[in-house]
């Protein structure tokens, strides 16, 4: 149970305070309601490149990092297909420094040409380090466009290709800032050894004067229901062939989300899950195999991924996975199996609340979905899932015509 209080500034900035005086630290989390799904198809990777530019100086403060480090703080940020999130931790006594820094870069950026030039190069190296220069690093670059043919989830947060990043110009940067980086498009969460009254005072002081405006209205194309199985075969100089199967599933806020979450756990969470037991241990077809969800705000994917043992054919491995998948539509899961994955989910929730920053992040994410109280409702929603719900979820999702299959062949 995470306790919190919330208020909204006149300019539309939604603020949440979570007091925890068991630590001398405070965290400040600013979540902007913009991700790679909001990008233009010809300028992909931009939300993430922009995140880098948020550290290249704001209108009144030439360096973001140095003043924060000087007061004992540290920070980072991430971009996903749904959101861009900035967070910092610092000794609570210096909380105001965090407000000063975060509010200035929401107010306006320095738009340094040199900053843009350097960060374009840095992000290109990040693209190589994380996606192109790693075995299997390009899997998502291939799988997403196969599964999504209309919705912007078809490209990855890093971008479709390096040239989109290399070609970014300052006009794009300014336009993106005006459109997305405004108080009405953001959620501020402050947590730790801080009082609600003090946070309110500091929020009014530093964020209050930033002009608000009309909120960004998201109008993204809906991904049409997939009608037939999709297959893609690709090859790469890797030691082991790999298999990926992506099934369309409901959005994070959908009523049926948690049933799919638990279905995925029965299939492929850890060493006791069916895929591992049958395909790694009993049949020894796979080196490893698991299932997970993308968990996105728009309808997402349930993804089964595994690396094959040397000498196993992709077709045989795929058939073995499909046989296990078919069991879920043919019969109910065991009550004890469902109880097991509920216990695992419950455990994950509790362990997820240990870290202060994670609590702040979860509050922001819940608020973005419309209600910060959702953060305390997860457990109930997980426990409410029945054996019949899992069967229903399997019948609607684990259908061959709802699946995109990628054969990643070792050569």
């Amino acid at each position, binding site marked *: 149970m995470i306790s919190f209080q919330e208020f909204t500034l006149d300019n539309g900035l939604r603020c949440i305070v979570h007091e925890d005086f068991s630590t001398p630290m405070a965290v400040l989390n600013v979540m902007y309601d913009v991700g790679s799904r909001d990008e233009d198809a010809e300028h992909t990777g931009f939300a993430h490149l922009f995140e880098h530019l948020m550290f290249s100086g704001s209108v009144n*403060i030439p360096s973001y990092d140095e003043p924060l480090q000087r007061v004992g703080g540290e920070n980072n940020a991430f971009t996903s297909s749904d959101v861009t999130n900035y967070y910092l931790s610092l000794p609570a006594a210096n909380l105001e420094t965090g407000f000063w820094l975060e509010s200035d870069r929401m107010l306006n950026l320095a738009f340094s040409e040199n900053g843009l030039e350097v960060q374009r190069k840095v992000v290109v190296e990040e693209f190589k380090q994380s996606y192109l220069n790693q075995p299997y690093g390009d899997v998502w670059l291939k799988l997403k466009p196969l599964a999504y043919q209309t919705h912007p989830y078809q490209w990855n947060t890093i971008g479709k290709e390096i040239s989109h990043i290399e070609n970014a110009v300052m006009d794009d940067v300014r336009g993106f800032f005006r459109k997305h980086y405004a108080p009405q498009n953001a959620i501020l969460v402050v947590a730790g050894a801080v009082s609600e009254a003090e946070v309110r005072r500091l929020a009014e002081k530093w964020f209050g004067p930033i002009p608000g405006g009309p909120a960004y209205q998201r109008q993204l194309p809906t991904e049409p229901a997939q009608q037939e199985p999709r297959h893609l075969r690709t090859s790469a100089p890797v030691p082991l062939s790999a298999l990926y199967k992506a099934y369309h599933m409901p959005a994070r806020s959908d009523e049926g989300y948690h049933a799919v979450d638990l279905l995925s756990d029965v299939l492929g969470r850890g060493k006791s899950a069916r895929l591992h037991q049958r395909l790694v241990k009993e049949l020894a077809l796979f080196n490893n195999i698991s299932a997970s969800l993308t968990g996105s705000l728009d309808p997402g994917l349930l993804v089964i991924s595994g690396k094959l043992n040397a000498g196993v054919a992709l077709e045989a491995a795929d058939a073995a996975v499909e046989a296990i998948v078919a069991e879920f539509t043919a019969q109910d899961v065991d009550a004890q199996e469902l109880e097991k994955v509920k216990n695992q989910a419950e455990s994950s929730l509790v362990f997820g609340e*240990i870290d202060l920053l994670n609590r702040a992040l979860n509050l922001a994410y819940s608020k973005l979905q419309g209600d910060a109280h959702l953060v305390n409702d997860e457990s109930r929603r997980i426990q409410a899932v029945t054996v019949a719900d899992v069967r229903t979820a399997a019948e609607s999702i684990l259908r061959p015509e709802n699946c995109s299959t990628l054969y990643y062949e070792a050569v």
Partner: protein
Amino acid sequence: MLDRTVAPPVQPLARVTLPAAEVLSLPSGARLHVLANNAQPVVRLQLVFRAGKTAEPRPGLASLTARMLLEGTTTRTARQIADEVAFYGASLECDAGFDRSTLTLYCLTRHLPALLPLVSDVLTNPAFPEAELEQLKTRTIQNVRVERQKTSFLASERFNELLFGSHTPYGQPFDSDAYQALTAAEAQQFHHTAYALSNAEIFLCGDVAAEQALVAHAFSVVPAGGETVVPVPAASAATEAETAVDVPSNRVVVAGSLQASVRMGRDWPAPTHPDTHRLKLLVNVFGGYFGSRLMRNIREDKGLTYGIYASVAPRERSTNLIIGTDVKGESADFTVREIEMEMRRLQEELIPADELETVKNYLLGKFANELSTVFEQCDKYKTLVFMNLPSDYYTEFVQQTEAADAETLQKLAQQYLTPAAMKVVIAGPVEGPAD
């Protein structure tokens, strides 16, 4: 009117200290270290043995033995173990490092009583079934083949070889043939000697006030049949004198790679050394945080990398400095020269007062932040135990970091941050001139 160009005043940082652990000597000879904190209803239980690479009689045996503990006991199959752990929403893993192996249980406090018999069983009665052993060996060898596709892995592996020697526990690369040849009997024998409860250091942390006695009881009795306690080998140096014959090349060519991985470093004073805290400060100025000399030069000025870091890696028998980065393919040699230039700057020029103040505060704030959870507190405490450090080590860290001056750091840079003393490894696309 709000003046946004002026930073809010800096407030002094509150002094934080590591909470003291309670230490109990159990009848089995094991020591139980307890850090109680009821912020969340969770527990972490770790049993640590001198069963890492430095203790193994054959290469790979420590890792194989550790991982086989979860693969079946005399009364439970691998499947039953996995099911039982999962049913309680817990996690149970055993891994061997360079010096120690650690069996780790994470669970909700309320499930600890139900899980303790399982932990005890995998620890004392592993069966090393042949089928599981062969599968595990195959999977491990395949996984290393995948890792060896990465320039970062290849560079780190070669760096350790060059620094410590190819035939030492710290420097030896993974040997697939040797691993494949390991037998269940060898694992059984290694377990019998290296996992003696009498040598265990047990760490219990989290919401454990009520469960402490249960844990103490579970690991108090030496199992029937007794234990063969092998005397701990003397802490011989982990490094060996290299002969010209077996020094591997410092270049690993990976044709077609888009990036090159650079690893540089040298042996470094151990945490028990009187200058350890000042050296940590120096390494942080050099490459330990986002605003470091290396990060500003190689990333923020030249855009050659996503990141570059320098850090100290303390191990029980040897400590070393490591600088690591993945850079644009053709820029590796240039990057090495820039890294050396940054070392010389620290030797030749005093660190400006502003910069030094920033790094000190950053380090002290980070230290406070790292004590936020009981798991992190326990990790810091474990370092004291295994590196033989005094209980006031972290108090000294705070005081000496605050008191350090630029002149002393410059002298330390002259003494230790010497380009000529560094081993350099590059794994990447082009063959350059060997050093």
